[in-house]
């Protein structure tokens, strides 16, 4: 390939610019982590499930929260009606977190929490839970998603406007650098950007642009880049276009390494590494002939493995219909095990390197991303581009374009617009959600408000308000609020009074 400098552009696996992978031995040393994400019901239900998983040898837990927790509403808030404990666990205060991890040694496990706008509060609940067990902050490890920029861009679970949100994030970065060194502070996510309808190039470019914005914000807040950059990780989608996806991961590593070293002056080689988790594309699954989804997911998973992912979640075939059944979840996990143990693809490190097509595609992805970085720069950076609706419009347009291509059959979706089964009946399994969960949770918050020291609660919330209005790090006071059992909703409410609430303008 013309102008391809092997050392400059590819390098060896585990060496700059890491196009071929972040570790020298990759899967020959150790497979990727097979991490399946789940969560449901009350803290008590989930706790039982965790004990079961830990007894069976799992060492990492992954928490999915319900929508009210994600949006910062307590379970007894009117906006929470009908949504408590639905698509994840309901956590209102430190009390719920204590129940959630009852009997679990937080020094021995790591916990991944999919939480963004209220990440600082859930992290505080977690740290205080450990504190109550006598576990030091520096002994606890885990991940919070904490990627607010992609919320404005795609996932839309925001609370505050962008600027105060970025301040909360830099407060977390600074606090964890000093006190919780084993914590992964941001999982910079392209997954949701892709699910919202973006192209592969947009996913790559927008996610990395978000990453740069966090690094710049950290540096601007006076934190040494090498103290927080090794704690940043990424989360990508694995969609259907096999080689394009592989090229996307390879380009991502190369862009990140160069930018971190050359532009942000990171000296620690671990700051240069783009480590990432991958989930197969939920939006590519079809309700029609759902068994076909097993095949789709398998190819997507293979692309992530060939692209050098550090961990992987494979979707279940029935996820477009309802929450997955046990059997479907098992097949999804087996898909990964099959790739690891039977196909032999893990025996070779970056087996596609040097292929003309792969290297050209990787460069093409890189160039498309650079083009987007220029546009974002011109608009005044990521936050300005969000305020102008740049990402939202780009993604909306791509999603509509995709839909039209499917409807006009320019794009074939097997079982949907071609190769249909006539008279196929979609059997949608009924997901029974016990309303009792919501009632119990509401009652629990009510009781908590009665039992705790409400004078102390009022004092700490007042202190929170003052701190939010000033320049000091928010984390210590949020921890104090957590310790005296302020609820998530109360803490959020105080912050809303200072920071305001975000409202997205209509972008089409």
């Amino acid at each position: 390939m013309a102008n391809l400098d092997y050392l400059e552009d590819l390098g060896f696996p585990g060496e700059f610019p890491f196009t071929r992978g972040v570790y020298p031995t990759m899967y020959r040393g150790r497979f990727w982590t097979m991490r399946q994400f789940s969560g449901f019901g009350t803290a008590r239900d989930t706790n039982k499930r965790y004990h079961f998983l830990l007894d069976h040898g799992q060492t990492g837990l992954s928490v999915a929260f319900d929508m009210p927790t994600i949006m910062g509403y307590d379970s007894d808030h009117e906006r929470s009606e009908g949504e408590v404990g639905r698509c994840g666990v309901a956590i209102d205060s430190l009390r719920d977190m204590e129940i959630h991890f009852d009997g679990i040694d937080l020094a021995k496990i790591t916990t991944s929490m999919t939480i963004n706008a209220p990440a600082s509060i859930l992290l505080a609940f977690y740290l205080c839970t450990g504190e109550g067990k006598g576990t030091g902050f520096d002994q606890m490890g885990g991940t919070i998603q904490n990627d607010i920029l992609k919320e404005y861009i795609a996932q839309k679970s925001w609370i505050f406007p962008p600027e105060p949100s970025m301040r909360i994030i830099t407060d977390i970065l600074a606090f964890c650098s000093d006190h919780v060194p084993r914590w992964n502070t941001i999982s910079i996510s392209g997954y949701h950007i892709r699910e919202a309808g973006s192209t592969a190039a947009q996913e790559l470019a927008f996610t990395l642009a978000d990453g740069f914005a966090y690094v710049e914000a950290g540096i601007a807040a006076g934190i040494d880049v090498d103290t927080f950059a090794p704690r940043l990780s990424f989360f990508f989608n694995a969609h259907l276009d096999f080689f394009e996806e592989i090229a996307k991961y390879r380009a991502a590593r190369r862009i990140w390494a160069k930018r971190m070293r050359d532009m942000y002056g990171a000296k620690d080689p671990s700051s240069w590494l783009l480590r990432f988790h991958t989930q197969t594309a939920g939006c590519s699954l079809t309700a029609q002939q759902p068994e076909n989804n097993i095949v789709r997911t398998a190819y997507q998973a293979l692309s992530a493995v060939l692209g050098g992912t550090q961990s992987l979640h494979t979707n279940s075939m029935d996820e477009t219909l309802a929450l997955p059944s046990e059997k479907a979840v098992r097949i999804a996990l087996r898909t990964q095990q099959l790739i690891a143990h039977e196909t032999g693809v893990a025996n070779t490190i970056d087996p596609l390197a040097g292929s003309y097509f792969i290297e050209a595609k990787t460069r093409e992805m890189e160039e498309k991303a650079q083009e987007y970085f220029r546009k974002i720069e011109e608009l005044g950076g990521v936050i300005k581009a969000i305020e102008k609706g740049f990402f939202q419009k780009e993604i909306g347009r791509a999603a509509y374009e995709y839909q039209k291509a499917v409807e006009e059959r320019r794009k074939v979706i097997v079982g949907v617009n071609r190769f249909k089964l006539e008279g196929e009946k979609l059997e949608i399994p009924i997901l029974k959600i016990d309303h009792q969960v919501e009632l119990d949770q509401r009652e629990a918050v009510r009781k908590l408000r009665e039992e705790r020291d409400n004078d102390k609660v009022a004092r700490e919330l007042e202190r929170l308000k003052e701190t939010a209005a000033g320049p000091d790090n928010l984390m210590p006071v949020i921890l104090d609020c957590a310790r005296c059992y302020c609820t998530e909703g109360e803490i959020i409410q105080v912050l809303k009074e200072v920071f305001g609430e975000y409202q997205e303008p209509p972008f089409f």
Partner: protein
Amino acid sequence: MGKKIRVLVAKPGLDGHDRGAKVVANALRDAGMEVVYTGLHQTPEMIAESAIQEDVDVIGLSILSGAHLTMFPRLVELLAERGADHIKIIGGGIIPDEDIARLEEMGVSRLFGPGTDTRDIIEFIRKSCADSVS
């Protein structure tokens, strides 16, 4: 000038998955309809009030959170209370057959499942509006 079909597209509930709602809104606009888009995090009360003030012919809701059995009936009830039960309600999302039957009995006109062609939605709206404007 003549009559234009007016449709309200809204996304109730706390989740932010508005891809489907936006795609449908775009498709209806391109089919010549006037689409009032009220976006995310809508309560049935907000939807009813907007639909009434905007005098829409149809309300389209996108529900993915599983809250369809609370959202749709509440909206039907609110419209009836305010003398606006002529407004048709359609929806999209992941909804089991059993619930579809129940919701259609309660007065929801039509529910569209995953993989629906937007042209089917357009045709359904045109037809139901032609029936009511006699």
